[in-house]
């Protein structure tokens, strides 16, 4: 009985977000985000409806990063009703304060795990990327360009991806690496500065500008 009442209250609380989602121009992208997040976190829920999945992501513990992505996609809506609903939902569902997303374009299905101290400031980011905590993607200084990142890129804990570079599709950046040179698709980079130790599934050993480390 109590659980039923609680469930109804939760549904009413989540309604402003559903309203914003249904009337957002980026609805298709957010839907893909929700599907991919549920696919990554709890595959047993893949048959639920979209609203049920949204409810699960909002009420699951330690998934505040999803809220950041949701508000990033919604952006700044026009109209008084939408603006006040957005402010209300930001009060009810607080986003992670130490995660900043300021890329002009991010493909659907970006998943951020434990976004403590994560800065995402890429020129362009592809689909279904995976980013962890303490990752910084951005410029080195004020007179610098931002990186371009492909699809299905995995950027592990504490890595820094800096400057005007291109990261290919399906690339993997290992923990605590510093990448400041281009990475080919299907490669694995590791270290400071990052060496490419695997390319297209084969072992390789070179720094991304072509020099072989001593």
């Amino acid at each position: 009985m109590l659980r039923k009442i609680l469930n109804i209250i939760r549904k009413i609380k989540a309604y402003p977000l559903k309203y914003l989602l249904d009337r957002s121009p980026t609805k298709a992208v957010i839907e893909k985000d929700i599907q991919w997040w549920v696919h990554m976190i709890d595959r047993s829920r893949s048959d639920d409806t979209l609203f049920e999945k949204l409810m699960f992501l909002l009420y699951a513990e330690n998934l505040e990063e999803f809220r950041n992505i949701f508000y990033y996609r919604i952006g700044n809506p026009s109209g008084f009703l939408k603006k006040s609903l957005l402010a209300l939902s930001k009060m009810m569902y607080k986003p992670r304060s130490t995660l900043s997303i300021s890329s002009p374009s991010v493909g659907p299905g970006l998943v951020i795990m434990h976004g403590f101290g994560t800065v995402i400031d890429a020129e362009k980011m592809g689909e279904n990327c995976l980013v962890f905590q303490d990752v910084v993607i951005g410029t080195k200084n004020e007179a610098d360009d931002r990186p371009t990142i492909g699809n299905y890129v995995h950027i592990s804990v504490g890595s820094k991806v800096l400057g005007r570079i291109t990261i290919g599709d399906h690339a993997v950046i290992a923990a605590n690496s510093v990448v400041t040179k281009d990475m080919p698709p299907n490669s694995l980079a590791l270290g400071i500065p990052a060496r490419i130790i695997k390319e297209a599934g084969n072992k390789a050993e070179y720094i991304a500008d072509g020099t072989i480390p001593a």
Partner: protein
Amino acid sequence: MIQKIKAIPHILLFKRSSNRAAIERDMFRWYQVYKPRLPKNSVTETLIWLLETHPEFGNLFYARIGRFSGILGRSLLSLAKILHKPPRETLRFAEPINIGPGFFGRTGFATIVAAEKIGENCWVNPGVAIGYKDEKGGMPVIGDNVYIGAGAKVLGPITIGDNAVIGANAVVTRDVPPNCTVGGVPARIIKRDGEKVKERLPAPSS
């Protein structure tokens, strides 16, 4: 309009502060980095914009203002702290701060700035720790125009020379000469006066 009313205590504090020149240089640096589009390019306009959009500037602002002894200054400061967004919890400055003017800190996530002294125009990125190495104490002394990359750690009683660049994710526990770029774990010199080199950092002379 509301933004302007909210920022009145801050403007009064700023005008009365003994560190006014330093705060003004800071604001100019942040303005240069972000290049905002403001209706008027005045100092107060920039201050309002920074307080609204960059909470990490609030930390620096309150740290520079410091503590007041009089009742008026104290109440003004607490009013300011109530009125404005609480600054970043994840950016800490050691008090009393000894930081030269023109300091820039990006986003202020997981950043500790506990230095003996920092020179002018320093740049600190997210994830940086500047502070003690162990219980013996001793904090770094950092020169002018030093750039500290994201996730770098500068620890212990060491000296960082002027115009040094510390690369991302580097761990520096020895003195860094001026005009050098260091990187890696442990940090090595990778550039000296603009030329690529491979050198170790000098051992401590104790």
